[in-house]
């Protein structure tokens, strides 16, 4: 099957530092792949290259066989590449509901209607409310996004991404900073999306149990390089991976997101 997402020799250098170093990667549609790697390995930068926020120094990103060079983040989102952000990236003084509603509005392609009141599109508000319910944020719908606790902002990020309903979901540490009680609910959401909605999901995470639970495959980034890519059990046995990264995990010193 033709891969839905693919990179060829994808590289970006910041000054002398190569943050992503000729990464060849591909994944088929409806696949769930996790990216692991220590802090600073280049995982977020890899996302930024796929979503178009950063331009590669060399190499290319292919989506459904098409080279995305020259396509803005706007175009990529519209074509079906949606992402969430590691550092929460919302509309701070708008209400939680409005944050999600704006994402739903974009999905529905209601972009330039200036004649009707926004609330006359009741279905948008309804859909936004359902998403808030899904991520357990319903009771915060009228709070300003800036007033949310960190874990709640993470949930809002997820709701906004889901609202876009893109074919590919790039999730950058969706549960980082959430309290332990909150994580299982979000795991459930991600699992549900995976099974129900036929999505291709690329997930950056540090929580190994979560990754092993969800992933069809795992890729390991280390110093910007792709160290390994394969099914979870193979990756867990991989010697290079063990040495470079996983070594500590059995001893309970998994790198945490700093």
């Amino acid at each position, binding site marked *: 099957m033709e891969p839905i997402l693919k990179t060829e020799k994808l590289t970006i250098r910041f000054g002398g530092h190569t943050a992503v170093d000729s990464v060849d990667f591909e994944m088929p549609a409806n696949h769930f792949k996790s990216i692991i790697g220590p802090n600073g390995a280049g995982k977020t930068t890899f996302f930024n290259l796929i979503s178009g926020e950063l331009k590669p120094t060399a190499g290319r990103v292919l989506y459904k066989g098409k080279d995305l060079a020259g396509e803005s983040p*706007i175009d990529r*989102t519209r074509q079906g590449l949606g992402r969430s*952000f590691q*550092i929460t990236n919302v*509309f701070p003084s708008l209400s939680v509901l409005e944050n999600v509603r704006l994402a739903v509005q974009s999905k529905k392609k209601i972009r330039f209607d*200036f004649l009707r009141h926004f609330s*006359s599109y009741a279905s948008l508000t309804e859909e936004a409310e359902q998403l808030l319910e899904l991520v357990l944020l319903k009771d915060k719908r*009228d709070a*300003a996004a800036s007033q949310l606790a960190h874990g709640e902002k993470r949930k809002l990020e997820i709701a906004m991404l889901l609202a876009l309903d893109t074919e590919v979901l790039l999730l950058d540490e969706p549960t980082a900073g959430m309290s332990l009680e909150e994580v299982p609910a979000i795991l459930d959401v991600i699992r549900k999306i995976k099974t129900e909605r036929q999505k291709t999901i690329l997930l950056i995470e540090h929580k190994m149990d979560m990754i092993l639970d969800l992933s069809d495959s795992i890729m390991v980034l280390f110093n910007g390089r792709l160290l390994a890519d394969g099914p979870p059990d193979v990756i867990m046995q991989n010697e290079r991976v063990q040495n470079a990264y996983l070594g500590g995990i059995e001893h309970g010193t998994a790198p945490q997101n700093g």
Partner: protein
Amino acid sequence: MKKPMNWSKISLIIAAVLLAAIPFVSDSRTWLILLTQIFIFSILAMSYDVLLGYAGMVSFGHAMFFGIGAYTTAVLLDRFEPTLLVFSLSIAAGMLIAGIISFFVGLLTLRLKDHFFAMLTLALSGLFLVLAEKWRSVTNGNDGFTFSAPDVFRDRAVFYLTVLALLVVVYFALRRFTNSPLGRVLIAVRENEQRTKALGYRTLAYKVIASVVAGVTASLAGSLYVVSLRFVNTSVMAMDVTLDALLMTIIGGVGTLIGPIIGAGIIELAQHYLSDLAGEYPLFERWIIFFGILYILAVIFFPTGIAGFFKSLFSRRRRPEADAPPLEPAKPEVPR
């Protein structure tokens, strides 16, 4: 889906009706002229609010659009018959020119970051000021020229009512515009442009639209302004016009539309009374100093403007709806 009229709409309509009754119960010319002035500047300040309060664009050149409307109407009324038709056509022509120029000004945001955009608008409006000074055959330079307004406007009350009606129309039109799905995206652009792009909105288009709506509306204010004076000179292009609009918007409350109207009232009334006082106490000749003080006080005590202050009073009692927003949201350059 019909919603019941909300109290704010009702009280605004009542206020408009009361204002419309004034010419019939009072024959104070001074007040009619002063209120007309307030209405005109309310339109200008609201247009500035669309830029600053909704799209989050800081422009120091808003006077150029006011000036374009002013000169277009003045020149056309002067060259042709001072009829209502010419007056209406001159408003349309001014809006068209302002629309075209504001379109290109809006496009500049593509290449220019916030403060460079502000500087460029300043330079551009300076250019228009110089043009008005040098193009003597049309503008008569600094001295300007007088012209006749349409006959019906000889009656100050008629002009007053016309301007009031236009104010009401502009207010409700801009209110619908800012509350439309498009307007909501505009607010998103102000809040976090990069995130708005990530949602799939072409933010440049929204900034251009905001620029055009603001420019066109400012031009209307300029057209009305010169008809109220029956005179035009280069002062309509001056920096003071932009500063007035800025001050009115900030004191009244950015991103509220009603705030700029309140701000226009305060500033115009203050100017009126302070210049009266200046006759007795020379200290007040420097009334601009008082605006400086007023501005500082406003920023300290009403950071969201007067309208924002009352809004947050109400929302605190009802539900914590998002308060009037801060002017400068964090905009991460590269997301992580």
